[in-house]
């Protein structure tokens, strides 16, 4: 274990050794969890339990706030899947989030469709479609596209969408679409509150498990290879670009799902929701929490949102500055995110082979 950590460090020039030291210097506990994934499930469990009891202990308005955070966590998950696992820097993830939001808002406004079984699939589909289109354009083609190209491509896409939404009268222009009717199921209306909370928590858990299954499978290994060196794995015979497009589309779909929930929960959509602001925000959540762990995305969202909420209450005039400083500190000293306090690099990357126990035996038997 310790050897491998050193290795990563060595791959980086000594000058920034300081940076990596911090990055790699995981706590002793994490080092123990070498081959298995021992820490992650604990963290996941703790977060889940906390999420389950939250509405019981929180005041009403905080439950509503928590619902919003859970929806955003779902959104963050979509980004983590794409960036943390496939190495595709989607700086325009809000495009899928927001367009789905607009889509369901229009359904509700113009067609009076608010049935949960119609609007959520519709939102998911919108996210998926947009991601397929944009991903197809950016990711497929003769030459593998560089990370920077994809990041600026998606950023520009979302920037352009934002401006389009602002300029397009049918979408309410700058003002967006207000007063969206609540999501419904038969006669029941999902207004914000505990019911809505448990609904989105349920969705989050299902999607989380789905993502977890996906990234721990051999497909996840292929993604890990992709992230390291796309060209190399193409030479093995992987259809690297297709894999990327697939994961990008899945990410888009999840973002779309989150976007439609968000639209109904907040009751309005507005151009920022497809734009750079929200796109950057989701990147912040994930990097803050720690990318490539799924749970890091959730934790990052909770903490960033929670801290901003608290700061804006207590340091009214200068909270953006404080938030900036906090972000900077975390990025400086925990470039792998808060999760790296408890999680070692090796466990984060994980391994995709045999079960840990078999491995340990292997290690002993090896010459």
């Amino acid at each position: 274990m310790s050897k491998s950590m050193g290795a990563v460090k060595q791959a980086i020039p000594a000058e920034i050794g300081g940076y990596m030291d911090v990055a790699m210097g995981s706590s002793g506990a994490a080092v123990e969890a070498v081959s298995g994934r021992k820490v992650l499930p604990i963290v996941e469990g703790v977060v889940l339990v906390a999420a389950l009891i939250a509405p019981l202990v929180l005041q009403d308005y905080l439950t509503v706030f928590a619902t919003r955070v859970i929806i955003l966590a779902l959104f963050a998950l979509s980004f983590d899947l794409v960036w943390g696992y496939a190495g595709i820097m989607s700086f325009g993830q809000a495009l899928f989030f927001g367009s789905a939001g607009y889509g369901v808002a229009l359904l509700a406004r113009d067609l009076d469709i608010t049935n949960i079984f119609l609007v959520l699939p519709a939102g998911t589909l919108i996210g998926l479609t947009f991601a397929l289109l944009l991903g197809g354009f950016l990711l497929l083609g003769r030459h593998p596209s560089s990370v920077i190209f994809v990041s600026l491509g998606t950023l520009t896409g979302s920037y352009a969408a934002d401006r389009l939404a602002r300029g397009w009268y049918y979408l309410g222009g700058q003002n967006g679409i207000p007063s969206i009717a609540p999501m419904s199921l038969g006669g029941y209306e999902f207004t914000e509150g505990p019911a809505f909370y448990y609904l989105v928590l349920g969705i989050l858990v299902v999607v989380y498990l789905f993502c977890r299954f996906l990234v721990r499978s051999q497909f996840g290994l292929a993604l890990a290879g992709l992230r390291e060196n796309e060209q190399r794995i193409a030479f093995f015979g992987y259809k690297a670009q297709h894999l990327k497009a697939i994961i990008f589309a899945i990410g888009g779909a999840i973002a779309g799902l989150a976007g439609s929930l968000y639209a109904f929960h907040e009751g309005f959509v507005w151009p920022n929701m497809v734009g750079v602001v929200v796109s950057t925000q989701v990147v912040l959540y994930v990097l803050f929490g720690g990318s490539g762990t799924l749970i890091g995305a959730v934790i990052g969202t909770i903490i960033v949102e929670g801290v901003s909420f608290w700061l804006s209450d207590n340091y009214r005039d200068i909270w953006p500055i404080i938030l900036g400083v906090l972000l900077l500190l975390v990025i400086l000293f925990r470039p792998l995110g808060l999760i790296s306090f408890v999680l070692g690099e090796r466990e984060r990357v994980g391994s995709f082979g045999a079960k840990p126990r078999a491995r340990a035996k292997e290690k002993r038997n090896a010459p």
Partner: protein
Amino acid sequence: MANVFVAAFEILSFGAIIVLIVLGLGIIASMMGIFNFAQGEFVLLGAYITYLAYAKGLPIWAGMVAAPFVVGALGFVLEALIIRRFYAAPIVAMLGTYALGLIIREAVRGLIGGFYLTVPEPIGGSIDFGTIHISAWRFTIIVITLLVMAGCYLLLSRTSFGLRMRATLENPSLARASGISTPLMYGATFAFGSALAGLAGALIVPVFSLYADLGLRFLIQGFVAVMVGGVGSFIGPVAGAGVIGTLSAALPWIMAPVVADVLVFVLAIVFIKFRPQGLIAGKGV
């Protein structure tokens, strides 16, 4: 005829402004591999310093001269304290510089109270040719931009500074093994890029007035320009900026501005898709 002349001048002058803003961004992106999201705020600082000089009753040009030095020095310090840790991870760098930019921007917003403040130009008024009026200050900007461009080009191509800089970015450990002091090079490059941003801010503040989002306004345009021009050289981003700047000033002459606005970005991204190496492939300076 007169109309065409005015149009050409106006379009050119906006192109020059974008070039000026992108110069520093491009140098940092090309030479150091960092897309500096705080670059806009360096521009803002340059503008703010100029404003300060004006508000304190000093001659405006004094502020303009001071701006690049102050911002460059700040860049040097920030590089040593912060940016240095990011070279291995360009994406983390984007976020780190984003946070840095946020801090600077909000601090300046606090300082200027969120207002839009005017700073007069040292050379005001217009140059008149019969019925045609062109802005004297915009003309000055074009001239200074050309001079700065030429200066940068010479610095990077004719001195060993450029070579050291490129070697350092390319392979820092080998650069050290060749006797280059990489920390110094990183610091100097970043400071240089920041100083250019400071200068840009100082020169454009009379045109756009001072406000906290002044730099942010040009940031994405700047990134797109860098990509269109091609990362990896000095010339690339400059060419890209020229194209993007002129295009965004020229398109509104022939179509609805709202459409033109989106079109510029769409065109740019399609262009990059089919010519990923950019207008000028990353060769030489």
